[in-house]
């Protein structure tokens, strides 16, 4: 049984058809990629899977459970972590608090614990802090745990987002253009981090990306999306040589 299965998903924004008959099936431990020109609907697909929007048609099954119509936080708690294209970090919170926050669904001390500072609450907060620090170690920013995120360089902020997504114990990680705005050095570092978390946790990863080099190196299979429709799917090599993909990215050759 695939970890995530999307069947015939279609979505309309008013009269605009943003996604048409989209299918996807990700197995445990796979790394998959989604590429396509700007405005093709890649981020929309992420938002449909994670429950930000509810698909107009189609089925989405995650770990054997239908998740269409579930609120975002419940889908996330099932084990679906994500990052955002335009870094959605919490301005006034420290790095450590970011990573602790993602463990929200694992907290069971309840409001009584929160109001009166019970032993159990202190215990659990301590454990969560431990776990958060370990994750920060993994992405290499433990020394910045107490800094405010707004003061940090862009590459570090990306790592915070990664650690934050990992703290929900995900089975599947959705990365929305993780390399946007990064320089080549940061890019190599990030590739390292992604490989590492993939190996450590045995995660499945589904990523949207523009940089071909990055996608080609990481992904087992790639889909190409144009105007909400998948025009090609296959291994990096197949995609690279697919005339339709080349056309979508570079334009058609003028016939002479």
């Amino acid at each position: 049984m695939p970890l995530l299965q999307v069947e015939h998903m279609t979505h309309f924004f008013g009269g605009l058809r943003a996604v048409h008959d989209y299918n996807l099936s990700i197995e445990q431990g796979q790394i998959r990629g989604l590429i396509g020109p700007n405005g093709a609907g890649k981020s929309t697909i992420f938002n449909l899977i994670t429950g930000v929007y509810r698909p107009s048609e189609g089925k989405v099954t995650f770990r054997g459970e239908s998740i269409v119509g579930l609120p975002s936080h419940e889908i996330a708690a099932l084990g679906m972590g994500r990052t955002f294209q335009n870094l959605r970090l919490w301005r006034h919170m420290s790095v450590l608090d970011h990573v602790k926050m993602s463990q929200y669904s694992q907290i069971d001390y309840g409001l009584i614990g929160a109001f009166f500072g019970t032993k159990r609450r202190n215990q659990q907060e301590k454990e969560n802090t431990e776990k958060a620090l370990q994750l920060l170690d993994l992405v290499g920013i433990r020394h910045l745990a107490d800094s405010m995120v707004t003061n940090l360089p862009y590459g570090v902020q990306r790592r915070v987002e990664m650690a934050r997504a990992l703290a929900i114990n995900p089975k599947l990680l959705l990365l929305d253009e993780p390399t946007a705005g990064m320089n080549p050095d940061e890019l190599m570092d990030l590739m390292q981090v992604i490989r590492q978390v993939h190996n450590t946790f045995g995660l499945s990863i589904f990523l949207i990306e523009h940089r071909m080099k990055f996608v080609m190196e990481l992904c087992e299979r790639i889909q190409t999306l144009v105007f909400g429709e998948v025009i090609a799917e296959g291994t990096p090599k197949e995609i690279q040589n697919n005339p339709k993909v080349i056309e979508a990215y570079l334009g058609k050759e003028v016939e002479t």
Partner: protein
Amino acid sequence: MEATSSVPTKRNAFNAWLSKQWMPYRQVSLLGWLLGSLVAVLLETFIGTSLAWALGMSDVPALFGFVVMLKQPELLPSIILYLLLIYFIPIAIVVRLTKSIANKIAGLLFRYPLWITALFHIVLLYAVIDVWAVMNDYRVLLAKLMMIAIITTLSLNVVNGYMGEFSCSHPGFLAVGAYTASIIMVLFFVNDKVMGPALLPPALGPFFFPIVLILGGVVAAFSALIVAIPSFHTRGDYLAIISLAFMFIIKSLIENLQVFGGARGFMGQPNLASLPVVFVWTIIAIWTINNFVRSTLGKAMNAVRDDETAADAMTVNTRNTKMTAFLFAAFWAGIAGGLFAHVMRYVNPGSFGIKKLAEVLAMVYFGGLNSVVGSIVGAIGFNFLSEMLRPLEILKWVIIPVLLILVMIFRPTGLIAFKDFDPEELLRPKNQTEEEV
């Protein structure tokens, strides 16, 4: 930066001198400051009145001279002399003399669980406030009202600061709490002309008072549901509008309920909100609210404020978070209302109107958003200011908004904003940290 600091100007020299003078006081623990203050207030109790006469004042300056500052400015030099002799100099001397011993005691206490240290400090703090306040009735009343203001401000800060929504319904919750507590107390424990004889022996009143206050808080929290359910479907300005409407509805509801006195007000509350009672409630409020905002469940409010989509994607139940925070804030506002009614022993709907709202909002934004210390400072500071400007009558309501605007321009989030309040840090002995550095 570099250029200005390398050239020694007069101002820099003064600043350096000042920080050098302040150096020894950095190592004073909270315990030391409390001991110093205790000595000062005791000194005032014994020689304050005679000193005031000697300096040509009719009585001790009730609020560190704030009250008479504008009424009789010619007394200003004697007030300053009085403050120096009674407060500043004795505190400075005691604090320096007891510095090492106070740090030792604090260090000793620090080995025990935190609550023992905290309790010790709280008792000492109460002693200071009590000795200070019993000098005259004005101080007692003001101390009580300030503490109630602290509870109100903190509870509003939970919604407006920590959660980043704009709620205007706090006077409404205060009114609900005030009337609920008053009615139950008068009905059960007071032989009243209007409400009839007491249903239970009045002697039981003090024991049931906390329960009745909590009941008032719970009713206020339930009334908050009326605002919360429609407005938390979405974010934006809805809450501000609905909560403002709620405040006016509650006010006109009470004005038209003739059973409870209507616009004339409701009186006869038993005299149960003494200084220690209000003090204990204030401590409990600060404690629970601070606990809440520092837990992950409470910090979820910040996540919702800063980016709700991201919070949702990170498993935070945003709707629950918003509801909890709002009802919790309303609960404490209800308690504050109940206390207020029993301090004044009279409530009328007029005191829960737009003016009250302006006051509470001013305290929150003046003190600082997202900060427990900020709210305490805001509540106390605003009350001081308000007492000081009282002689100006209506002009007071020109000056306070102007000050508020200035705060908004120069410190848009308030004086002490976005600070975590860590009691452990506050109570810790200060000598070790200095040595480590």
